[in-house]
């Protein structure tokens, strides 16, 4: 079954420029992140990476369909206006406030809870909260995949928001079944979720750390979903600095900001989000 037709495809079909018989499922995605007419010059790697992110979200992952993943992305945006999330954020005791999130109803309540908490108050997440989620229907791998989608949507949306750009329409889901693949090298150590260590990155996961001889926990945080790690490099290279430049605080990968300015921004964002790591 083909997915819903993106508006741009519909327009082209009606004008006779495209045949309905052929597969043009990438047309909607190719038209996304068209920054040509903006007041700011956007580096070409940014729309390329954003399109890769949108494509990644739209496809079935390990545990969620493309439709689920796009629904998760939509829920990230809905979380910003959620009354329950606002009350919790304002409270000194967020776990003492119960209620129902403002959501579309497309996802189970546990998933909505994960998406909203991650989006609006991740700095105050507790292991007990995570453990409670796993006592219900959610698995650790499903949770990590939700986290991976939330994180990339926020990267793109916060970039747009900071520049005063409208939110990019979410991609059309691409039909397909989740692979249900769980990497055998993922083990519990150093986090709430199992992760693949450098030594565990073998066989199908041999490529995920790009031949590095040392990794830190934030690099392997999402490794229960290997494709999330594979996407991560291009996001860092585009939105921050190239991997090779990262350890050297005097290198800025040719950006218009000094590296110290980039680190200052990073530290301020992390401080505002109460991120200890």
């Amino acid at each position: 079954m083909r997915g819903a037709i993106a508006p741009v495809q519909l327009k082209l079909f009606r004008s006779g420029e495209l045949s309905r018989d052929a597969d043009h499922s990438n047309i909607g995605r190719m038209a996304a992140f068209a920054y040509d007419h903006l007041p700011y010059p956007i580096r070409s790697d940014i729309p390329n990476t954003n399109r890769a992110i949108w494509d990644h979200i739209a496809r079935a992952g390990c545990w969620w369909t493309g439709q689920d993943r796009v629904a998760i992305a939509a829920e990230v945006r809905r979380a910003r206006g959620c009354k329950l999330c606002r009350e919790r954020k304002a409270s000194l005791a967020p776990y003492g406030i119960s209620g129902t999130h403002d959501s579309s109803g497309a996802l189970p309540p546990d998933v909505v809870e994960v998406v909203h908490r991650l989006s609006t108050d991740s700095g105050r997440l507790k292991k007990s909260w995570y453990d409670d989620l796993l006592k219900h229907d959610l698995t650790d791998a499903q949770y990590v995949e939700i986290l991976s989608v939330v994180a990339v949507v926020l990267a793109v949306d916060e970039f747009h928001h900071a520049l005063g750009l409208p939110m990019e329409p979410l991609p059309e889901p691409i039909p397909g079944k989740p692979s249900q693949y769980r990497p055998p090298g993922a083990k519990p150590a150093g986090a709430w979720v199992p992760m693949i260590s450098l030594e565990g990155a073998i066989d199908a996961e041999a490529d995920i750390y790009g031949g590095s001889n040392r990794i830190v926990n934030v690099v392997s945080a999402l490794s229960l979903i290997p494709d999330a790690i594979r996407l991560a490099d291009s996001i860092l290279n585009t939105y921050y600095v190239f991997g090779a430049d990262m350890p050297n605080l005097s290198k800025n990968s040719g950006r218009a900001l000094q590296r110290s300015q980039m680190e200052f921004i990073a530290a301020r964002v992390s401080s505002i989000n109460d991120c200890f790591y």
Partner: protein
Amino acid sequence: MGVVDEQLLNEFVEAAAHRDEPRLAEAREALEMKMGANALVDAAAVIGCFQRLNRMSDGAGIELDEQMLMMTAGLRAELKIDDYVSAANTPKLTGLKRILSVFMRPLENFMMRAMQKGIQKAQAREQEDAK
């Protein structure tokens, strides 16, 4: 050592993070006028990057890597970063490692100063190249 244009960058980050749209519009304009459109775009990209990384770190409950934990004890105490809720995800150092981290505090200061000097040199080189 201060960061060049620190106040402009801080205003931009805070306005974006707190979703204060009028303040953000002003901060954007001020940043672009002083630092240029490319710098504005790069600043927005770093914001996006770390909004993502913060969720990954806190959402996965990752521990601070041991080497970093030992080398930043003094800095974390000074900035009260250990008071963050997510600090609970990282087990406290014990035994010999805890003792070592105390001895490493003077080294921490030395390393910070060395890093600052390196960054100042790089900034001075960049400014020379720009002339």
